[in-house]
């Protein structure tokens, strides 16, 4: 065999090799993008959480290894348990509210009626507003003495004295959740509505013959067929909600008296108010861990339902 000999096999191999390069070439931009803008920050955040990372670190680039100190400090933080409970309440109640109202509206818009298209697009408004604008407007609405919500409620006689929406630790979390539900409805409606559109009308006709109308049709036709969409909506909902920060900072700044402090806002506070970036990163990682947990639950549940053939 001489160097010049080119067997069909090597040609094939070379061609295969070339096309592999091309194939990698195609995914390279995506991989690079992910590595740079997702991989790097996550890795960096991970290493930061094990370092004594202060404002000086930004200038010198030096941070001493702190072991688990940051995590221990974060867990011992007196606000931690409150923030954790708040995060759970905020997430669960927000998602439940958004989903139920979103589903009701999606079902409502499924029947077409005059102006339904217009109304549906109006429903997207909260989604289009920058969060910080929504927060500012809601602060005025919820203002205790001159806010329009208290004025309206007392005019129709529902309340006798104004509710201190954002200035009492009993109501602040409720108020924040309320606003977050309002914010999240459009997202739920859009996804659920498009999910509903994909269910063939004939199934309902067939169901009607079998006596499945109204609630029964919803329970035995709509819900099972909508299940993949529902799980996506809920999972994304959890991931979006668990890390909400601008809304809370805009409405209450985590106050009053830490009543609306969540893991996300506390992490921000540790980094940018107390300048302890290591602890902020540690708390951020705990948040990532919780979000990951939900993703795993979702993926497993999904896999199981696939196996069962739904």
């Amino acid at each position, binding site marked *: 065999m001489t160097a010049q000999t080119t067997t069909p096999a090597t040609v094939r191999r070379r061609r295969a090799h070339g096309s592999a390069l091309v194939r990698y070439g195609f995914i390279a931009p995506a991989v690079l993008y992910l590595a740079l803008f997702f991989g790097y920050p996550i890795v960096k955040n991970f290493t930061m959480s094990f370092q004594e990372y202060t404002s*000086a670190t930004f200038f010198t680039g030096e941070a001493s290894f702190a072991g688990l100190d940051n995590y221990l400090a974060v867990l011992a933080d007196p606000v931690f348990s409150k923030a954790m409970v708040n995060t759970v309440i905020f997430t669960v109640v927000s998602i439940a509210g958004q989903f139920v109202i979103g589903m009701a509206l999606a079902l409502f818009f499924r029947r077409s009626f005059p102006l339904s298209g217009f109304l549906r697009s109006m429903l997207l408004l909260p989604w289009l507003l920058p969060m910080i604008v929504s927060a500012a407007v809601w602060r005025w609405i919820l203002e205790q003495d001159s806010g329009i919500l208290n004025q309206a409620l007392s005019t129709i006689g529902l309340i006798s004295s104004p509710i201190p929406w954002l200035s009492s*630790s009993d109501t602040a979390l409720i108020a924040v959740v309320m606003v977050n539900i309002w914010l999240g409805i459009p997202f739920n409606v859009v996804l659920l509505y498009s999910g509903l559109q994909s269910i063939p009308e004939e199934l309902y006709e067939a169901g009607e013959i079998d006596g499945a109308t109204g609630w029964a049709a919803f329970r035995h036709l709509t819900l099972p067929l909508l299940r993949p969409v529902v799980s996506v909506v809920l999972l994304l909902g959890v991931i979006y909600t668990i890390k909400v920060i601008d809304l809370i900072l805009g409405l209450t700044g985590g106050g009053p008296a830490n009543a609306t402090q969540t893991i996300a806002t506390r992490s921000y506070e540790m980094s940018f108010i107390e300048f302890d970036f290591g602890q902020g990163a540690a708390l951020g990682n705990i948040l990532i861990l919780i979000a990951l947990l939900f993703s795993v639950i979702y993926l497993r549940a999904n896999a199981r339902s696939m196996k069962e053939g739904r």
Partner: protein
Amino acid sequence: MMSTHTSAPAGPVLRRRSLGALAAVPGLLSLAACGSSDGGSTSGDPSTLRVVDYYNTPADDKVIQETLESVGAEVGVTISREKVPGDQLIQKVLQMSSSKTLPDILMLDNPDLQEIASSGALAPLDDFGFDTSGISPEILAAGTYEGKVYGIAPTVNTIALFFNTAMLEEAAIEPPTTWEELTAAAKALTHDDVYGLAFSAIATYEGTWQFLPFMWSNGGDETDLATPEVAGAAQLWADLVADGSASKSVVNWGQGDAMDQFKAEKAAMVVNGPWNITGLQEDAPDLDWDVVIIPVPAAGDDSVAPLGGEVWTIPQTGDEEKQKKAAEVLQKFVSAENQLVMGAARNTIPSDIEAATTFAEEHPELATFVEQVSTARSRTGKLGTEWPATAKAIYTAFQQVLVDGTDPETAFADAAASLG
């Protein structure tokens, strides 16, 4: 931090914090470090100085720009100025410090100075033979870290008590000078939908800043929060809210919000600063108002308010020539004449003791603030880089008192304990 929020237009204080994936934030900040190389402020032109500050409101912006340009021309450099939103300055500074792109002249809010100086990013002004004579010692202290002056303030501010002249006259009430008078006046002035007093007890540095004059005048000290003097100040606030003389919403009001209540004549008195005077005059031109110093616990006590305002610094850029030029520019920038010009345009008080006296004569409407500044204290003078954590402990504690009805002594004992 104070004027950061407060010099923003009226309305709820909102910080733009769409930080995307939260966990990734600190990571993203340091992403800028990727292409870092040592030294070198960015602009290549040796005769151009880069300046970063947060003066965005027209009144501030104009006079700062003009003053910088004129002193720049004297030194023979051109000024390239970048304005950032007030609440984003620290993030920006950390980013620039990480990517070695610090400007030649950097403005910082005074309570942040020690934190940034401790990182090594700033040069001591002494290195350039900077002359600080004439400047009030307490104002110099606000720009000092570990015995060295890093930042110089041309003008400063503080807070005092604004009152609605007509409302007080109608109720035949003299402007209060003691806590007792303040409580009585606030109660007497409260009726229908008007509160006697508005202040900001928000869960930010802004709330702490408003709490300090009461805490300090009562003999409280930030080095030990578990004292009856500190608790006493919180008790005063709690009583005002419990009486209904101040709205429960104070826990959610920034200083701009409190001033809005005063403008709308929904509050007869308001604790506020001179930076909001322009807005007050523009929005409520028919409102007659005056200012007195913050009432003290008992007649004869000293009214001690916190010192606010921004200090100007020279970052460690590695370019010594430029640093020297920057120091020259800064020296002229803080001259007594320039202080008077900037003070007049921005309703702030010159830091030079003599200039302040002249200023009080020229601007009698600001004389109260000149007086209040003369006894004012810097927030970081005693605690240095420990201040941010203490400031947070203070606002957490008084919020517990106002919102949850926690006993002030308990709340501040907990606050002291949390600081270890």
